[in-house]
């Protein structure tokens, strides 16, 4: 209801301009600094899914699958993600074709009809939260290392869950679920985990 006549905001453009100019100078300074100093520190930041891809690569080195899963002829180690997962490219660019021991890492996309057979690792990103619970149930007891990132991933029966702590990537392990699938997780990995849950694989909580 207030119908004020003039508007103080329009009164003093020169002050405003000066403040804006000062802001810009300040911002430039900061950005210069960031540019100049960056090379020394550039190793310490990276894209989330590039880092996660590297984690997945390492996980494969610290997990032992039961003999039957790795049939001798096939030299590939398959990381599967559900089709339509937006992180396919990032994962592929980071780890596709990398040697891992005597094997070669491959990133495969799993369409709904396709069998999970041949997948040693299944990564369910947050974007797949809708399908997560059903997917994990269908894998119950199968020798597939399941890695995810939603808060209820481990309670849904998943094995390794990524989380962010202070902008750095950490992970929790559900050893119960891994045991159930006859996967052996190296103690080195267990030591690095934020929490290790010994539950029965489906309902242990975290």
């Amino acid at each position, binding site marked *: 209801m*207030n119908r004020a006549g003039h508007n103080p*905001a329009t009164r003093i453009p020169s002050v405003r301009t000066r403040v804006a100019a000062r802001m810009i100078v300040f911002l430039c300074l900061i950005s210069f600094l960031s540019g100049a100093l960056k090379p020394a520190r*550039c190793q310490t930041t990276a894209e989330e899914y590039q880092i996660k891809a590297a*984690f997945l690569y390492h996980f494969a080195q610290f997990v032992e699958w039961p003999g039957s899963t790795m049939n001798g002829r096939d030299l590939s180690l398959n990381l599967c993600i559900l089709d339509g997962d*937006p992180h396919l490219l990032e994962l592929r*660019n980071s780890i596709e074709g990398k040697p891992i021991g005597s094997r070669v890492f491959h990133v495969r996309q799993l369409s709904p009809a396709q069998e999970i057979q041949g997948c040693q690792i299944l990564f369910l990103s947050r974007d797949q939260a809708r399908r997560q*619970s059903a997917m994990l149930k269908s894998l119950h007891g199968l020798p597939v290392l399941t890695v995810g990132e939603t808060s209820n991933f481990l309670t849904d029966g998943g094995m390794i869950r990524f*989380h962010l702590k202070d902008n*750095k990537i950490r992970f929790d392990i559900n050893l119960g679920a891994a045991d159930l699938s006859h996967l052996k997780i190296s103690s080195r990995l267990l030591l690095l985990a934020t929490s290790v849950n010994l539950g029965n694989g489906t309902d242990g909580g975290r």
Partner: protein
Amino acid sequence: MQVHHFARFVFQKPPGCRRLAMVSQRAVRRVRVFAGIALLACLGIPDLPAQAPDLTQKSLEDLMNIDVTSVSKKEQKTSETAAAVFVISAEDIRRSGALNIPDLLRMVPGLDVAQIDAGKWAISARGFNAQYSNKLLVLIDGRTVYNPEFAGVEWDSQNVPLDSIERIEVVRGPGAAVWGSNAVNGVINIITKSANDTQGGSVTAGGGNAGQGPDSFRYGGKARALGAYRVFAEGFHINSLPALSGGNGQDDWRLVHGGYRIDTTLTARDSLTTEGEVYQGDAGELAYTIVSLQPPENAILTLRDRYCGWNQLARWNRTISPHSETSLQVYFDRWTRSDLTYNVDLNVFDIDFQHHIAWGARQDIVWGLGYRVSSDDVSPTLRLSATPQDSITQLFSSFAQDEITIRPQSLHLTVGARLEHNVYSGFNLEPSARLVWTPNSKNMLWSAVSGADRTPARSDTDIRLNPSALPGGAQTGYLPVLVSYLGNPKIKNEQLTAYEAGYRNAWTSRSSVDLTAFYNRYRDLESYEPQAMSIETNPAPTHLLIPTVFGNGLYGETHGIEVFANWKAASHWTLSPGYALYAAHLHTQTTSLDTTTVPGTQGGSPDHQAQLRSSMSLPWNLQWNAAAYFVNRLPAQSIPSYTRLDSNLNWRAGEHLSIILAGQNLLRDFHPEYNGSDSSVQSGMMRRNAYAKIAWAF
């Protein structure tokens, strides 16, 4: 399954007026500021074509020390949703430096956020902005905070500690088929973090020239039988702002609130979330209001608006099979609010059941049933009363939606409808059809046609508002004159048919674009119909009554475009530009005598809004963020256009400590954002302010 996001997307937005070209000196200056920001940002990235290092060569221990530059994709798979969705992630919240939810919502392109005074906002999508915008549905963890009795959102009592928010999903455009009535021009869905994700403690304190706080305490732990829990308490005191009309606005705003959330795993298939909150607040305001039928009839009063309330919610999720999940949610919400000129209390009980079932390979169905009962009491004052004084209303609702895969991976059709029954307008059917075409993983096109209704509330049917009185004169026979707005029990739904189309593109892993166009047709929009004068004896003394009755005398169209992009200019720097165009063409039916609502509505939402946000990671765990928002003028309110610049420097000083230094409204000492005639409150001038906040986690 988090309550119902998979299905609940549908929406749009409309109002404003069209004023495409208004190049003033101020605009030129604004361009210069934008250019300056862009320039500065460029200087910071000498390594643009940075090749990603081969991280697999690093050890796990090294990997654990790498900072994540972006939590890249939105939590929700918005790229597949056939609606104009924008998700504010927890990371966006952290980077924004915002102190409250309305300031966060400014980053959503196409949303119209205008601050009225220190603690009040007018927020809408796609036009029709007002202090009580009645076409935008807002929910917190599945609990509606759109007031079903008074058709609007009291933003000053919707406070969630910002570091407990998992994400905010904002859908512009109608969502009524899934979310229910009043999701006409948009839905804002605030989702808090699971207690599993807020373990440990944190203490936050802050302040600046705008006020003290929010100061907060939070602790999360695990109890054997309960599972994960958290408790929190938060308080703040925001200083008063200058009034637009001059002088002190007397609008300082205080709030304390506390609450909890528990996430319990009952069995392998069942989980239970319980949460609750209690709050108390008060805010000052200068309001022009009637005080008596005798001189002086009206006055600008310094009022103290006091409010308190509590709410309690429980949600039980059950996985029946890999293809079938249910959720049952119950909540109770109570609040009271009053100042000298009104006194209202409200209770709401709501129960909602939902079943999600994948039927065969091609159909994904969600259906649900809901019941809500609300009771309220409006203690009569000279300014505001209701007949009957108290009322109990019930709402019955049901909905079903089917997402049909026409061609696997590329073509999906979603059809849905909601059937509701409410006491004011009876049965409403709100249908929607949405088509998504994903020719490849980088492009997605969608279009939708949907219907949505804004249902009447007590404030449309039963209320009597006496905003002012006039002294008598010879023409009135020396009787005083009372101006009165009267509810109309026969009022109908305001109805919308919306046509939307959108395009999303992720050309590269570094950039994405989202474009939406909408065309909305409204029928039976609310109007204010002047009636013949009459003589009234109660309240005494005998006076002449000039009544205005609510009607459905307006109709019209709105249209617009909303576009936003994300561009990762370098590994440590992200830019997010956005723009929204909006135009309204409203008309008065020949039977209507309303001459003020059309210009007030058309000129009360900006026709152009633009924004540029920048987020940059610096060495030493520093992060610098800035956001500039341009909002064009509001001709109906004499609000000039403005550009708002907010910036902050965020420092993570080790594992436990983080410090943020922030400035808001940096370009001007003062500017107004809203002065709508719908609000009796004297608008304030937003002030340049700076604050520091320190957070300790343990």
